[in-house]
């Protein structure tokens, strides 16, 4: 780390919470020679260290870029408010953890946009790095600012702040982008010609350069987003890694010293999910299903255990019990790791008995509760959202869990779903009561968590508006009263936060000024309840005469131009519309993994297909 930064930190760090957040130096961190590489990349995670370091994508890119001798990648996280204050007072610019270099000295800064509520942190980090916030105010001395992650599927509200977005799987395109930056600077003796560079980047498949696309409005309604240079594709298609078997996986990840959100090894069983839940963005934008083979996963698990020393391994993916070799995988891992007291955990279990049997296999002691996500309280509504879980599945799952010794059951639901009535909200209560009454003697405790539905881009519900705030609050109160005094713990989410998410999830470029204004009024860490500043946001919307409730609740017409129409994630808009219609009729659409193709158009158009290795899975 640079001496000036080090000296300043020595003074500041004793005064902030969790100083280690700002120090790096973890096992497997890369300290590469700045001068001997061709391109210096700073990965910026717009949340605190503990959140960012739990993100698999960071570990993948870090390993991928740093194994290249001609590239280096360093990390920076959003400084907590105490640290921000000291940094601003001391005029200490935001720096990369590995070398302590100010953000401005890197060739490229890459943000990952995991959730809408981190957008203000992106602005704040740029500001702390002394980089002009608006892309069109940056000159040739500024680093290139790129962004990726799920929110890049509708990046329009953040588009004026970002030079280029990377759509889809980052593994290949990230390297191509950095190679392009390196080559660009090489022929210019290290200098950069922004306009020329952006044109070069626009030619890389999967790279979206928003300044080359012009939105057009008529009477305040978006009518078109068209390219303004011929080099830019009319629609940018997301990148897909067709085969995860050969894709890079970080078996030597960074190992944080301080406790992070997920302190464990991670195995990525597969990418993509085609269960087809109609509210779920991940289920649309990560298609098709691409599994890793059992052998590959077992090898990675062994390497991880040896390289990390962690005592827990988490099997993750969008729906882990769907992995086609899951029984063998779980059995082998539990057997291999038992003696060393390495625990195995499964994320995202389906609500069925098969999943409970898996959970029983790995959780010899029923320490933590089991979590299921029926998402809706009645079969009618579960069919509308295509959840594919029946009441019998749920009660059988709970039966199996209780019989195996679990007493704590957590159930996740959503409220405000399209087509929902009060009967569906009551259905949540009835389902819980049914579970309790079926196990009267066992002391079963239920925790119910109900989040607010946020319509997302590239899903069949992208045309729907969000339920009104007053309705959401009424439903929340209704449930609170119903659950009062029961053996049921009830949690719900702040409606204002969900409103903000909804505004940005389907917003267009005109929201950038609101984002900027909210940041200027002090908004940051919007996802953190203790820092969420609704007054700042209200003020920002008012400043531009906008009503967030109107924006979030807006229904889009079938033929209306959507802000993300020029971004192609592979699934046909026609298919999404058909799914929307089927939802209205309460008709379900089956999983296409083994059965019939549901016709989303992705496999044919992007020349890819599901990769499955076994026959099992729930």
């Amino acid at each position, binding site marked *: 780390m640079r001496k000036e930064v080090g000296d300043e930190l*020595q*003074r500041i*760090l*004793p005064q902030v919470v*969790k*100083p*280690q957040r700002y*120090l790096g*130096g*973890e*096992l497997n961190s890369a300290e590469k020679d700045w001068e001997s590489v061709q391109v210096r990349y700073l990965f910026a995670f717009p949340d605190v260290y503990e959140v960012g370091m739990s993100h698999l994508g960071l570990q993948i890119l870090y390993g991928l870029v740093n194994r290249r001798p001609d590239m280096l990648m360093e990390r920076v996280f959003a400084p907590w408010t105490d640290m921000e204050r000291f940094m601003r007072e001391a005029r200490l610019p935001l720096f990369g953890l590995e070398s302590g270099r100010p953000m401005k000295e890197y060739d490229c800064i890459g943000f990952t946009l995991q959730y809408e509520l981190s957008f203000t942190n992106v602005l704040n980090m740029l500001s702390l790095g002394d980089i002009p916030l608006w892309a069109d105010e940056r000159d040739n001395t500024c680093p290139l600012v790129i962004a990726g992650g799920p929110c890049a599927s509708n990046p329009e509200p953040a588009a004026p702040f970002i030079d280029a977005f990377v759509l889809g799987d980052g593994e290949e395109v990230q390297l191509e982008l950095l190679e392009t930056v390196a080559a660009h600077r090489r022929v210019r003796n290290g200098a950069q010609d922004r306009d020329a560079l952006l044109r070069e980047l626009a030619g890389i498949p999967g790279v979206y350069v928003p300044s080359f696309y012009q939105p057009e409005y008529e009477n305040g309604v978006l009518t078109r987003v068209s390219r303004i240079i011929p080099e830019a594709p009319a629609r940018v298609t997301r990148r897909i890694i067709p085969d995860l078997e050969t894709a890079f996986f970080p078996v030597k990840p960074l*190992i944080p*010293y*301080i*406790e992070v959100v997920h*302190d464990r090894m991670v195995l990525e069983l597969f990418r993509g999910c085609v269960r087809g839940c109609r509210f779920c963005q991940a289920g649309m934008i990560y298609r098709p299903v691409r599994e890793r083979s059992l052998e590959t996963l077992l090898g990675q698990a062994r390497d991880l*255990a*040896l*390289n*990390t*020393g*962690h*005592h827990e391994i988490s099997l993750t993916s969008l729906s882990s019990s769907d992995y086609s070799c899951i029984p063998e995988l779980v059995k082998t891992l539990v057997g291999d790791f038992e003696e*060393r*007291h390495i625990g195995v955990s499964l994320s995202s279990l389906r609500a069925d008995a098969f999943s409970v049997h898996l959970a029983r296999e790995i959780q010899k*002691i029923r*320490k933590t509760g089991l979590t299921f996500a029926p998402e809706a309280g009645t079969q009618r509504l579960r069919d509308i959202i295509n959840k594919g879980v029946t009441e019998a599945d749920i009660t059988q799952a709970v039966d199996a869990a209780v019989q195996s010794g679990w007493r704590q059951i957590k159930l996740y639901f959503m409220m405000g779903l399209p087509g929902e009535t009060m009967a569906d909200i009551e259905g949540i209560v009835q389902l819980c009561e049914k579970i309790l009454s079926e196990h009267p003697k066992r002391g079963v405790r239920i925790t119910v968590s109900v989040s607010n539905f946020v319509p997302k881009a590239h899903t069949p519900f992208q045309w729907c508006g969000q339920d009104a705030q007053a309705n959401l609050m009424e439903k929340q109160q209704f449930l609170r009263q119903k659950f009062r005094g029961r053996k049921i713990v009830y949690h719900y989410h702040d409606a204002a936060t969900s409103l903000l998410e909804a505004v940005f999830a389907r917003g267009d470029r005109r929201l950038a000024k609101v984002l900027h204004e909210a940041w200027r009024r002090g908004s940051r860490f919007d996802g953190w309840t203790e820092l969420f500043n609704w007054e700042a946001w209200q003020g920002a919307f008012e400043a531009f005469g906008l009503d967030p409730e109107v924006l979030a609740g807006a229904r889009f017409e079938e033929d209306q131009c959507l802000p993300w129409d020029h971004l192609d994630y592979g699934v046909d808009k026609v298919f999404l519309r058909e799914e929307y219609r089927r939802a209205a009729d309460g008709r379900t659409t089956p999983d296409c993994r083994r059965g019939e193709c549901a016709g989303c158009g992705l496999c044919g158009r992007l020349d890819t297909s599901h990769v499955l290795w076994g026959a099992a899975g729930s």
Partner: protein
Amino acid sequence: MILRMKYRKTEAGRYLSHLDMARTIERTFRRAELPLVFSAGFNPHPKISFASALAVGVTSDGEYLDAELSELCRAEGVPALADKISRAAPKVIELLALMEIRKPERSLSAVINRARYLITLPSADPAGLARSKAAAAKLLEFETLSLKQPQGKNLRPWLYELSISVKDRQVVLDMLTETGQAGNLKPQDVLTLLNDECRANLDKPWLIHREGLYTQTGGGLRTPMDL
């Protein structure tokens, strides 16, 4: 077999808590493929016991732990095990010595009763240095010392040595204090007392370093490695 290890918490690990260090050490042992012995019960954890917890912000050249390993690894020999640990250790810890011990009658934390600290202060002018030295001498003259007025615990008996010198153009405070089960005098408290009771005006930051942990016996200070 039981191994006693002496290690350093380096500058890179200054801001780690005791729990962070404990986790880091367990992971290091796992990476070194040491056959750790686990406790029985619902939540088995490796049998590693520490001499003393070290606070956030403090580095050390003399930390100790005892770790129980399966007899299986005896054949490897202590030097080979030490080598494995060193190679698996991240830069916040450095192995200084490793030896096999017989099962101790009392735990490490029960036998430790002294700690020596070196505190580096921001460089002072000659007047400041003289003032600090005078303050240190004055502090030792008190018969009772307490942080909370009027009736706090008397800390004076736990302060055995205190001196101030200049090393490498830096002002360094050297103190020997009581630590362990009979009582604990934190170096920060001595610094606070110097400022509050003797007007030493010691500027921050105070870079605190633990020089070592000892057992005071009839024959003087001994480290856990010579017990």
